[in-house]
């Protein structure tokens, strides 16, 4: 017998790094309209192919084609476009505010606006999202006041979180938006528990769990799939694959699994991949998964294939880890441009109206910013009281915290 060759250690590498030509040849894009739309009560075994494909509705000309075309009126689509434009304008202003020193930190959504904006529209009253830090579209598409969001970002005297949380870690039970942790993936299993509670009580509310591609590697993700599968919890398990976890490409978390969606297959959970930059496809798939949950058919895993066109946060520079213009080569385009193109193609929109809407939305965002700043920014103006620091650790202030509060004299 010959000696075996020495073992080799394998570390996956992305297709391209800074200085190299962007390469997305590994992202196989099926034609719009080419993927089947099964009934919601389909046996998960029969749709395993959906975990490896990409459901798309908008074609290159902006036409909506195929079995996944959702029933959305022109007005609803325009509303969706306006939500995405609002989120983008909000991002631009808050990014700038961070650069001006008005807050410590910010995270933009550039390129990913369709995912959270379209998903929110498909949810019903009383449903609960368990989001990460890049789903502010869930609030904006639910008409949560921009001023409240900005006050949170500024940690000012009107901050609903009383200055305790990092910027963008919003919470609004009333708007179906669970408190963002900042620790990754912890919310995924909590969403399953929330959904289990709804089923235990015999209610009809469903939960939506959110995670990024990189954070699927946490064991919380695995536990969530086990519990969701075991108890058939009414939950939609969302994975937003924006290709990058700070500087780490998605292949490090994905490993040998063909796709993130495919992780659901071993659990008997129907798994779908969708073009996350296609507002119509994202909405249609969200609606399909939400209906399954609502009809007691259990969990669905949805992978949104998208691209993080901006930095991870205000603390990193993407040109240090990926080609500078990689986002220009992203084959699924920009969600706002694509919905705009569709609306123009169906005669519901014009370039002129678009420019007008952009200007109008920017003015609204700037007005909200002005109002928010009247309540203070991180280092200037009104701020939460030192006394607030001791509240809400418990429902009632225990003696040891009372003593500590006395020590700082508030």
């Amino acid at each position: 017998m010959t000696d075996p060759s020495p073992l080799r250690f394998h570390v996956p590498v992305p297709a391209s790094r800074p200085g190299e030509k962007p390469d997305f040849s590994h992202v196989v894009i099926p034609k719009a309209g080419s993927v089947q739309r099964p009934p919601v009560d389909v046996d998960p075994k029969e749709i395993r192919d959906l975990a490896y494909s990409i459901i798309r509705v908008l074609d290159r000309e902006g036409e909506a084609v195929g079995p996944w075309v959702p029933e959305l009126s022109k007005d609803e689509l325009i509303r969706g476009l306006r939500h995405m434009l609002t989120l983008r304008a909000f991002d631009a202003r808050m990014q700038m505010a961070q650069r001006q020193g008005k807050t410590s930190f910010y995270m933009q959504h550039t390129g990913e606006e369709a995912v959270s904006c379209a998903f929110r529209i498909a949810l019903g009253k009383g449903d609960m999202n368990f989001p990460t830090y890049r789903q502010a579209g869930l609030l904006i598409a639910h008409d949560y006041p921009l001023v409240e969001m900005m006050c949170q970002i500024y940690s000012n005297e009107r901050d609903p979180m009383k200055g305790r949380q990092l910027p963008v870690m919003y919470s609004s039970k009333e708007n179906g938006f669970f408190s963002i942790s900042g620790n990754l993936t912890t919310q995924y299993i909590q969403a399953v528990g929330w959904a289990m509670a709804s089923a235990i009580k015999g209610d009809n509310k469903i939960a939506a769990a959110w995670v990024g591609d990189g954070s699927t590697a946490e064991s919380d993700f695995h536990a969530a799939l086990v519990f969701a599968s075991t108890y058939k919890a009414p939950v939609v398990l969302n994975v937003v694959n924006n290709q990058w976890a700070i500087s780490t490409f998605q292949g490090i978390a994905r490993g040998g699994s063909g796709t993130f969606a495919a992780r659901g297959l071993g659990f008997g959970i129907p798994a779908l991949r969708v073009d996350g930059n296609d507002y119509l496809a994202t909405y249609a798939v969200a609606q399909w998964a939400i209906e399954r949950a609502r009809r007691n058919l259990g969990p669905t895993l949805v992978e949104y294939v998208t691209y993080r066109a901006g930095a991870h946060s205000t603390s990193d520079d993407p040109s240090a880890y990926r080609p500078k213009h990689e986002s220009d080569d992203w084959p699924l385009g920009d969600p706002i441009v694509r919905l705009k193109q569709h609306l123009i193609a169906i005669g519901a929109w014009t370039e002129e109206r678009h420019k007008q809407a952009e200007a109008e939305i920017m003015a609204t965002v700037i007005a909200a910013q002005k109002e928010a700043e009247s309540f203070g920014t991180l280092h200037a103006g009104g701020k939460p009281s030192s006394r607030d620091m001791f509240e809400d650790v418990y429902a009632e202030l225990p003696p040891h915290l009372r003593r500590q509060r006395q020590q700082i004299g508030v």
Partner: protein
Amino acid sequence: MARMTMIEAIRSALDVSMGRDDNVVVYGEDVGYFGGVFRCTHGLQQKYGVNRCFDAPISELGIVGTAIGMAAYGLRPCVEIQFADYMYPAYDQIVSEAARLRYRSAGDFTCPMVIRMPTGGGIFGGQTHSQSPEALFTHVSGLKTVVPSNPRDAKGLLISAIEDPDPVIFLEPKRLYNGPFDGHHDRPVTPWSKHELGEVEEGHYTIPLGKAAIRREGSAVTIVTYGTMVHVAQVATEETGIDAEIIDLRTLLPLDLDTIVASVSKTGRCIVLHEATLTSGFGAELAALIQQHCFYHLEAPIMRVTGWDTPYPHAQEWDYFPGPARLGRALRDIMEAR
């Protein structure tokens, strides 16, 4: 009144709570059909159905993580971690999530839940079935930590914990499940039926969290302790004839500092006693607080009698366990110190 073991008292607390409030759900590993490896949930699934009491996959993070989601929904989950030693996979969910949900959301979401876990040694459980991790919880803002020492307290404290608006860690000294163990492992087991605190009310009652009990009044020295060690303190006091005052903390956080300070100010001497390891144990916090609040009353340095700073060994269990002999020596030493 009925005679109950600590297991029966815990089961009774769960039963009473589930009967009074439909939002109380109970689950964990082997908790449903079988009724728990220590039998604390025996019969609850039959009585309340699988929606209220069920088996969970072997995933402590999954058990605690789902319970947080349920609590946020409005239920009052009371989950079991089979042994406290198994809670580490759930620690992030406990520390970063359950404990901080009210704070970080400014009260928008809350987390009323109880995590029960058998704790401590004395059953030849080795290093993975004997640990006392209470200090890992008392160090965390937002948690309450409870350790009962007898059936009557266990029931009243557990009902309080379930009705509490915040997350409560409920550590059950497993060596006390069937009797008041005083550390004399070579003597026949005493059952709870022979102990005054094994007499338990059958219906609903509560013992407030944050209130200690004085188990023995004395004037010579104060022993501050909790859980199994309360019984060790009682027997060591009898054996040495030293007139010790024994404080059973019952709740470690919130801590009943007033009771401790009043006692040590009276006796002028104090031994802090726990089964957990010494370094950075809860005894360190107690000693610091006592010297801060009772310094001018102290006639001797505060002593700590605890488990050694080793993993909990198997064969050497009784060398590790801070039993009546070790405490007796400390009692004699502290009375001679000046």
